[in-house]
């Protein structure tokens, strides 16, 4: 049996008296798409924030790719190969599409001051190579955007901003992609188009593991291999969507039936 790419065990995170994550166990296998679902406030985004080092864990361990990343900073988590999107789009609006995508490519860009300021010919080569890479990625999601690479993101509609955010997360070729409600604020058709793009990307990047937080159950049913359901910070169910959706506890959590 292969080892999980990401394995969180006994993960606890408290905010004062509130237990946002209560001994959460979650594993994602290589090449798997895991849906992380649950009612509002059940700890899904907190789980992402703890994994990516924005919050520390109070208890438990997170193993990624064989290394313990429980105490790692956000920087270290990114360098280890985890990228994410945010529930509320966190693009830098005054910057261009290209700039925003390059922010996600930080670890593959040469960062030395001397290189950046003085070796402009080499810098130009690196710039052009990255421009092509960014265009190639954007083309998968929306070919029209390729012509607008140097326009500010502020002028784009929500769906394009989501696409750019996913491109920003993918450009560095992470091993694990965390998608936090990619369909928030979009119509059904837009959501469907975005999911098609995500499946296409996954087809082109064998080995890419995705954990997706989503409220659209249609999306979850269509793209996930397996679901983990959280409620009040606790894992209450796990398994393929159909099985989880039929679970009595899950129905109670969502519908509030006693």
């Amino acid at each position, binding site marked *: 049996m292969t080892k999980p790419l990401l394995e969180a065990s006994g993960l606890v995170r408290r905010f004062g008296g509130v237990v946002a994550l209560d001994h959460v166990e979650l594993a994602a296998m290589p090449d798997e798409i895991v849906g992380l679902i649950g009612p509002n406030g059940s700890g899904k985004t907190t789980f992402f924030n703890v994994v990516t080092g924005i919050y520390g864990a109070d208890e438990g361990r997170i193993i990624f790719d064989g290394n313990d990343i429980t105490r790692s900073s956000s920087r270290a988590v990114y360098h280890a190969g985890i990228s994410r999107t945010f529930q509320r789009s966190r693009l*830098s609006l005054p910057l261009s599409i290209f700039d925003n995508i390059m*922010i996600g490519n930080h670890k593959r860009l040469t960062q030395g001051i001397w290189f950046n300021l003085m070796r402009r010919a080499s810098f130009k080569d690196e710039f052009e190579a990255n421009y092509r890479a960014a265009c190639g990625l954007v083309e998968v999601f929306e070919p029209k955007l390729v012509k607008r690479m140097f326009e500010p993101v502020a002028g784009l509609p929500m769906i394009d901003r989501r696409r750019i955010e996913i491109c920003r997360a993918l450009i560095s070729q992470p091993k694990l992609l965390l998608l936090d409600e990619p369909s928030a604020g979009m119509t059904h058709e837009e959501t469907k188009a975005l999911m098609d793009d995500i499946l296409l990307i996954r087809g082109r990047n064998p080995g890419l593991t995705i954990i997706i937080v989503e409220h659209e159950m249609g999306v979850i049913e269509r793209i996930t291999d397996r679901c983990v359901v959280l409620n009040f910070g606790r894992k209450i169910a796990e398994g393929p969507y159909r099985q989880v959706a039929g679970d009595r506890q899950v129905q109670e959590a969502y519908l509030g039936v006693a």
Partner: protein
Amino acid sequence: MALPGSRVSLLPGVAALALAAAYLIALLGAEKQTYIIVLLAAGIAAVLAAYWLKWLAPISRSFSDHEDALGAMSVIAAFAVAAYFHDDHFVLLLVVTVLLYTVATLGLNIQFGYAGVLNFAGASFFGIGAYTSAVLNSHTALPHLLVLLIGGVLAAMVGSLLLLPVLRTRGHYAALVTIAFALLLKTFLEVNDVLGGPQGLQVKGMNLFGWSFNDNISIGNFDLSFYFSYFVLSMILLAASFILVRRLERSWVGLNLDALRLDETASRCFGLDVERWKITAFTLGNFLIGLAGALFGMVSGFVAPNNYTFADSLILVSILLLGGIGNPWGLIVATIIVVVVPEKLQTIQEYRFLLYSLLVIAVLLFRPEGLLPRPVRRYFPGWRP
């Protein structure tokens, strides 16, 4: 003379530069107050008219596509202005002041415009440079170009020591620390007898390979003000800083600084070392400010605590707000306005702070991104895929 393959003409940029140079010559040469007021009003009216007629867009396109060529021509234009006033000490000193203040605001621009670290002690770091010149020129035999460099390094070092403890805080703590530093440094200089106390110190002029900058130059019966040598050196300093800041913006480093200014959390999630880049920007900015200050000390021949107060720092920040945060071209325009207008308009001298504040408020209300807003980053001017 459009370059092959480029679709944007160089002409509007050249025309704008020529007009600006002619206007500056007229303004700097004017003596009578009524004439100056008419000239200023005409200038404002002309810019507004050009704005309504949409003549400014072709100019900015021309600048963004042919920046290297137009940059070189700007240097020529500055030389034309300086050559016109070749024997006028007062005007040349004013021009040199504009050049060196621009270098200092370019430094502030790296700090605030790119990295978002507000520095309210700009004049203090400028002063550190000037005092470095005063002390080193009098007490050591160090080559004066090296003294300039030391002035920059010293300002940069003091700045990074100041910022280190507050690096992890968010919001405006760094700004508060710089305000405290500005007030402290002035008091320190005033009570420190070694550094001349409130009276300050004399600064020996620049001496380059045995050639003293403080002597007038005569070639045949053609007389040059001694400020002309300072003008040349300041111009070199400005051109170098301008290129440096431009390259910085158009690199991954500039992108890092923008990213951390706009969203620190997201930057960290994409591997950015926020502290490292903040301190880099602050240090680099203070280096430029200190360098400009060191040369300015030699130009003015005199340093005193009263020249480097918190109010002077605010003027530097207001230049930044006025010109367009993040746009070096805007800084040049704004520095000319802020430095030249009160000098020429003697009638408003005592009201100049009032005028600055009104101007800044007006800009923030009606054009919040400054007179020349910063365009989207283009890594190589004129580059097309």
